[in-house]
């Protein structure tokens, strides 16, 4: 199963490159014209076309594109004039820090809530949790971000409105400000980066939590009616132990499959949430590129996220195969 997934990775990546190439080189008819600007003279457009190999036949352009992507060369940003790959790498830690905290919060809060909601099915708590998850899944991430910003930053003034830190971050070790601050023993910076993290993290965590609560609840209900739980209860194993050890383990396997989906949602959420909080990560990079029509950067972002996404899904498959004896 896992071997099969790994085998399919190269063709999937190739397909991804093909799609991104098709969007950037086939749908958009004349990138050189866009780069040069509306009123550029014809010679200048032609020179640009030649410089980037846009005057070659499409198949040849595609081969060049595949070669470049495989070696990590994503071209130059039309706006910052820096290699796009460099820009993406330098912004990756900010997004990862945000996403990791969000997913940790979502799991730590979501799993117990899902279990309790399942154990007390149709209780008041279950209904409240259900209402909250239904709302969480229907909310537009950018709107939730603005709502939190309005309430906590603008009205109550307890969190910063935008940004990641005052001035410069701690000297990078991992690129995660919170971890770097702890490693350097700088507790003031640590507290400050937590305050900046709070709202964007919460915005990303709430919808992820809704998904986790739903799947954990469904998983627990499913396992609770299975024979082995009946058997364990009949054996006199304490209820608490049956629930938090055996039922939870089986139920979590189903939740785990959703981590890939949740991660995708987090990246999608990051695009708009980072814009609202001016968080210097991949998402705001993508949005800035949109605003500046920097299509080279957008396509590289798409490719980059696709690769990360494929790897995460692979990891989830591996983790599931390890945890679930049926998959072996």
């Amino acid at each position, binding site marked *: 199963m896992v071997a099969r997934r790994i085998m399919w990775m190269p063709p999937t990546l190739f397909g991804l490159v093909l799609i991104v190439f098709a969007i950037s080189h086939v749908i958009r008819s004349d990138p050189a014209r866009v780069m040069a600007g509306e009123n550029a003279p014809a010679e200048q457009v032609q020179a640009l076309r030649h410089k980037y190999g846009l005057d070659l036949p499409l198949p040849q352009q595609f081969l060049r594109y595949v070669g470049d992507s495989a070696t990590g060369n994503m071209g130059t940003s039309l706006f910052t004039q820096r290699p796009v790959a460099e820009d993406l790498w330098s912004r990756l830690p900010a997004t990862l820090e945000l996403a990791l905290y969000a997913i940790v919060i979502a799991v730590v809060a979501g799993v117990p809530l899902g279990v309790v909601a399942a154990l007390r099915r149709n209780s008041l708590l279950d209904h409240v949790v259900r209402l909250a998850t239904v709302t969480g899944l229907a909310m537009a991430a*950018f709107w939730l971000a*603005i709502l939190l910003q309005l309430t906590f930053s603008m009205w109550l003034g307890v969190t910063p409105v935008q940004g990641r830190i005052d001035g410069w971050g701690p000297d990078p070790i991992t690129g995660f400000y919170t971890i770097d601050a702890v490693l350097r023993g700088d507790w003031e910076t640590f507290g400050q980066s937590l305050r900046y993290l709070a709202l964007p993290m919460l915005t990303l965590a709430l919808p992820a939590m809704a998904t986790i609560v739903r799947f954990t609840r469904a998983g627990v209900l499913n396992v609770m009616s299975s024979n082995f739980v009946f058997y364990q209860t009949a054996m006199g194993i304490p209820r608490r132990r049956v629930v938090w050890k055996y039922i939870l383990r089986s139920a979590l396997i189903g939740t785990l499959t959703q981590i890939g989906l949740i991660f995708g949602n987090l990246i999608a959420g990051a695009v708009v949430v980072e814009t609202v909080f001016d968080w210097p990560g991949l998402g705001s990079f993508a949005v800035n590129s949109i605003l500046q029509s920097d299509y080279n950067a957008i396509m590289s972002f798409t490719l980059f996220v696709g690769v990360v996404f494929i790897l995460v899904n692979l990891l989830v498959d591996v983790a599931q195969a390890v945890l679930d004896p049926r998959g072996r």
Partner: protein
Amino acid sequence: MRTLRRLIRDRSALLGLIIVALLVLAAVFAWPLATFPQDVTNYDPPHRLLPPGSIYWLGTDRMGADIYSRLLFGARITILIAVTATTVAVLIGVPMGLVAGYYNNRLSDLLMRISDVFLAVPQIVLAIAIAQTLGPAIQNVILALSITYWPFWARLVYAETRSLRNEVFIEAAIALGASPLRVMALHVLPSIASSVIVRTTIGMGGTILVAAALGFLGLGPPPPTPEWGRMIAESRGFLPQAWWYAAAPGIAILLVVMGFNLLGDGLRDVLDPRLRRGGADAS
């Protein structure tokens, strides 16, 4: 009829049905329902950014237009985008899944691999790339959403068709000499229709969310179109004073997406007794 009656008995599904019906009504009767239908795209500086009150029920925006009226006309855009994009995605995905699931050969593998590649990127990221390339316009949003969403239906129909492939009634139809097209259209399709309907209903909610995000990022229909996502983006320059400006369109999106999700969940319970709520599949 029985389906409808059972749907109404489920309280949350009924709520979903009511919300969706209200959305359709709002879109169809936007003109008579609006308090200032003629001023939706006008510039009226003296009435800029007024808070909600008896004249402007939900306040006014930066152009001095009535937000309540704009929301009603925005419902038309939301419906247009969601219905068209979902329909196109269904029209691509369902036949693809049917063919792939029915034949189960090399071609099936290829089709499913193609859909996997599309699913390898988060939907909104791919939609952003396409919409950005094509430029901000309503038809480009629809195209971007259709291209990113068809694999969901292809996957679903493929799985369902494959599980039906060895059922006796399908084999009987083939043995009686029915052509593959006839078997697919008259025997397989009706049996999987209910799952397609459920998926489509829930898919509408997802499409609306992504469309709003595209609008928020400036990739939706250009101003002064009353698109909900763009309205929220515009409001950001006037916070925290003009809170109603950001709140109203966001609540509209929330309600509509919730409506489709609740209706979809309810339909699943009614149409597909194998997957009652709280069962194994909660997606």
